[in-house]
């Protein structure tokens, strides 16, 4: 609960929109963020999704597969699966999604949000760095979207992640309390509509 409060507070503090165009462009190496790429051999999270005043709770399992893809399954506590997504480089596969969620906009939003967290696009050749005060934005353009990883000057700390256009932020995310490369908390907050996802890691049988 304390971790989720931390996630909520941090997302609240950073809610003011970034004006990327006003930032100073640098020649610094954006690929330093590879160090922060999360590693999910297998992680189970308690998930809390809030969309326009509606709450949806459940469990999210993230697992690295032998074919180097990452699978993500969201179920409710009673065991019913809502979706099952696969990520592999630029490839994205919907293995299963319930009819009620099977909307192009929903899938696209979830895909891009989790691609930001999973750092799927940090190998883009056209990456660059922006400076805004003491924060350094490591920028990775991909398919018309811009994935921003905000670090300190020495790239030793990942402050937050953002996704948007070249000009405007669409959403931001933070990860925290890493254990063996796996974040214990993950928070996602959208700027243009009321949509948040909070994940808190659960230790279950497979990890004990």
């Amino acid at each position, binding site marked *: 609960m304390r971790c989720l409060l931390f996630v909520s507070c941090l997302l609240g503090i950073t809610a003011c929109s970034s004006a990327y165009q006003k930032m100073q462009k640098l020649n610094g190496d954006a690929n330093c963020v590879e160090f922060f790429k999360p590693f999910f051999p297998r992680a*189970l999270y308690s998930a809390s999704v809030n969309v326009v005043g509606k709450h949806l*709770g459940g469990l999210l399992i993230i697992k690295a597969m032998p074919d180097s893809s990452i699978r993500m399954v969201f*179920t409710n506590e009673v*065991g*019913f699966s809502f979706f099952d997504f696969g990520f592999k480089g630029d490839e994205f596969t919907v293995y*299963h999604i319930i009819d009620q969620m099977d909307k192009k906009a929903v899938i696209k939003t979830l895909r891009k949000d989790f691609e930001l967290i999973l750092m799927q696009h940090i190998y883009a050749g056209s990456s660059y760095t922006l400076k805004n005060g003491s924060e350094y934005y490591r920028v990775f353009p991909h398919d018309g979207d811009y994935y921003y990883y905000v670090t300190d000057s020495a790239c030793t700390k990942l402050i937050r992640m953002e996704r948007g256009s070249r000009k405007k932020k669409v959403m931001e995310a933070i990860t925290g309390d890493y254990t063996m490369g796996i974040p214990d908390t993950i928070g996602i907050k959208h700027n243009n509509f009321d949509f948040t996802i909070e994940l*808190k890691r659960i230790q279950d049988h497979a990890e004990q």
Partner: protein
Amino acid sequence: MHKVIVTAILCLATMIAAAQYPGYTLLADDAGFLSRFAATSQKTNTIKSDFVQEKNLSLLADKIVSKGKFWFKKENMVRMEYTSPFQYLMIINGSDLYVKDNQVENKISAKSNKLFQQINRVIVECVQGKALQGSDFTTRVFEGSSSFLAELTPINKNMKSLFKSINLIINKKDDAVSKIEMYEPSGDYTIISFINRELNTTLSDALFTIR
């Protein structure tokens, strides 16, 4: 000639059905079982039990095991309290549903969330045995040495999108549902096993009060 073909087909169907559930044989006439089960269900006013739930993610070759406590009181009150590895409380009282996870309490009415209601109604009806008498499923019953297996296959499109089939394992000893196996169209499945069951003990209505 026709009789031979029909007999052969029937034998083949029986063999296929039997192969589907090792240790179980398809009951050609399940009327006796169904009426006895309905009578037992009628007499079951309360159930108190622990449960172990195993959610199997087939393509991930992984599973999520959770444990908790279960209470049922006639006609349609259910309390499921997950205690490990996460805290989650679900109360069904008539057409109202209350859920509470780590952070949020949610009262859901039948009208506001049909999906939740459908899934939870199925669980309640499976525990009660009502699912065997309802119009949502076609039923086949198989007999094993110590239990019956009732296979429920959804009829309508909506239910088919949620479940491929549901199996109820019913103990011969007390004709009570000891296990629910829910198979989803994706290939994932969930098994809820009820252990330490106590039937017809006194349960307070307060357990099922939605505040």
